[in-house]
């Protein structure tokens, strides 16, 4: 029977691919419904470009969050870290730092806070990443207010604004001319890299093993402490990138930026099919999770639904997404 498993083309793999399609179906369904409800606004290039730009920072945060969630962890600090990185980016720009240096400083700061999260977990043996990252959530937010004096700092470098708000026009001069936000291209590139890292490298495989069964990873001789520090560092660095994109989009670093963003990133990860218990979840799914949240917000905006109701709907979507996952897992169990 062993010989029957054809490399790469097993029936199980086809079925797994189909099971992953449901998120894509949700996205298509949402697009269809929104097109029907708002025919003159929704399916315009301007609107879609806008959606792509708006989901960028949440998508980047969610990618980092996924790395952590795969190891059965959680990073509550990403929203605050994003805000802190934005403020530092703006201050560095104001202080006359070259654009590249201030960008590097913002991302490195994010990575540094991530390293603190990881070391608090592995060296200080804090019982759960919830606690360490709850601490850095507060420290980073407080530091943001202290550094900024509690007021927004506007005027970022042209490079940052280009990253956050410029478009790349494909097929210019033809009827197909479409403006694709640079920030969306950054998102696509990061998700591509994330997919290769998680699904195609030994380290990525070890992360899934660590999330699935930490003892299995230890028995296999995997340095689990090093891996954990690595994922929190990457998550923090991605929060820095998300901050750069958001600051570039709004051309400002405001001290309340990213409040609650950690919850949006967690929502995208969960809607995208990752398991809170670790060992499950793909960048592709999380990307669609972020797209679903973006489409929902956009659609409700177009229909003039208040932001308060939007929050209610996001909550219901989370419930629904996880419940569908529970049903699917139960079905798979009955089958085997």
């Amino acid at each position, binding site marked *: 029977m062993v010989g029957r*498993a054809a490399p790469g083309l097993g029936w199980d793999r086809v079925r797994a691919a189909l099971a992953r399609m449901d998120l894509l179906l949700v996205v298509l369904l949402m697009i269809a419904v929104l097109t029907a409800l708002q025919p003159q606004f929704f399916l315009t290039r301007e609107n879609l470009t806008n959606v792509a730009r708006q989901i960028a920072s949440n998508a980047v945060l969610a990618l980092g969050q996924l790395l952590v969630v795969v190891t059965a962890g959680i990073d509550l600090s990403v929203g605050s870290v994003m805000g802190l990185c934005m403020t530092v980016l703006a201050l560095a720009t104001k202080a006359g730092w070259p654009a590249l240096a201030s960008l590097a400083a913002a991302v490195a700061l994010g990575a540094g806070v991530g390293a603190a999260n990881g070391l608090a977990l592995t060296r200080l043996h804090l019982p759960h990443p919830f606690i360490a990252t709850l601490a850095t959530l507060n420290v980073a937010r407080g530091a943001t207010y202290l550094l900024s004096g509690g007021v927004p700092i506007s005027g970022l470098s042209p490079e940052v604004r280009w990253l956050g708000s410029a478009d790349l026009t494909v097929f210019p001069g033809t009827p197909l001319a479409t403006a694709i936000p640079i920030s969306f291209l950054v998102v696509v590139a990061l998700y591509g890299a994330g997919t290769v890292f998680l699904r195609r490298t030994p380290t990525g495989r070890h992360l899934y093993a660590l999330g699935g069964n930490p003892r299995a990873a230890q028995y296999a001789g995997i340095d689990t402490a090093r891996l954990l520090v690595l994922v929190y560092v990457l998550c923090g660095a991605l929060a820095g990138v998300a901050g750069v994109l958001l600051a570039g989009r709004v051309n400002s670093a405001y001290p309340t930026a990213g409040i609650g963003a950690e919850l949006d990133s967690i929502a995208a990860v969960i809607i995208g099919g990752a398991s809170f218990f670790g060992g499950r979840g793909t960048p592709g799914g999380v990307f669609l999770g972020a797209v679903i949240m973006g489409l929902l917000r956009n659609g409700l905006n177009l229909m003039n639904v208040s932001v308060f109701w939007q929050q209610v709907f996001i909550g219901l979507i989370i419930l629904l997404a996880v419940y569908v996952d529970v049903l699917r897992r139960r079905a798979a169990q009955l089958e085997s």
Partner: protein
Amino acid sequence: MSAPARVEMRGITKRFGPVVALQSVDFSVQPGEVVGLVGDNGAGKSTLMKILTGVYRPDAGEIRFEGRQVHFSSPLDSRRLGIEMVYQDLGLAENLDTVANLFLGRELTRPVWLWRLLDEPAMERRAAEHLEALRVELPSLRLAVERLSGGQRQAVAIARATAFAAKLVIMDEPTASLAVAEAGKVLELIRRLRDQGVSVVLISHRLQDVLDVSDRVMVLNRGRVAGVLPGHSARMEDVVALIVGGAA
């Protein structure tokens, strides 16, 4: 002079504070031999095996591997010589498939630009060959291990331990949680390993399984060797008497 034993432990003593866990225990396994290691809880079975895998260091005594004296300071040292352990909890990542589990921590890679990426076709091919050699049958190599039966998981764990030229495999209660038919398959697998020249140490409370498959049975009692019996001719009562001996 015959060939050296695969592993010979002599005069092994281990204390934990005032508690003497092992008192000058001698233990050996030949190439292609199955040794059953039995004893009551706390008799010292797992302490002895943890010394052999380098988890603990003995307070006294020496370990020889194929005639050479060795000192293990970590489980990696013993694994490098080909000593593998199958833990009672199996140590499988249940969310990953069989191929991923067999190669966990020792993945095959191929260079792509500056990166080393997983070489899935090569791993799948070698996994299939290895399982074929052990005559382990699975519904699919790409099914997450959590979807396999208990016996199939045990087989995957044993296959994992033997996938990289293992010379000695220590199995902790491999049949404890299995139905009779599945336990029988695991015992068959142990015999097949022996036929391939692999040494096996079998720790188990299921004495009938131990007697069925072992060439020798060593009984530990309160940190000492209570007796060594030939596996196939030993009677269950004699083994039980040695296990509980002194307590009665």
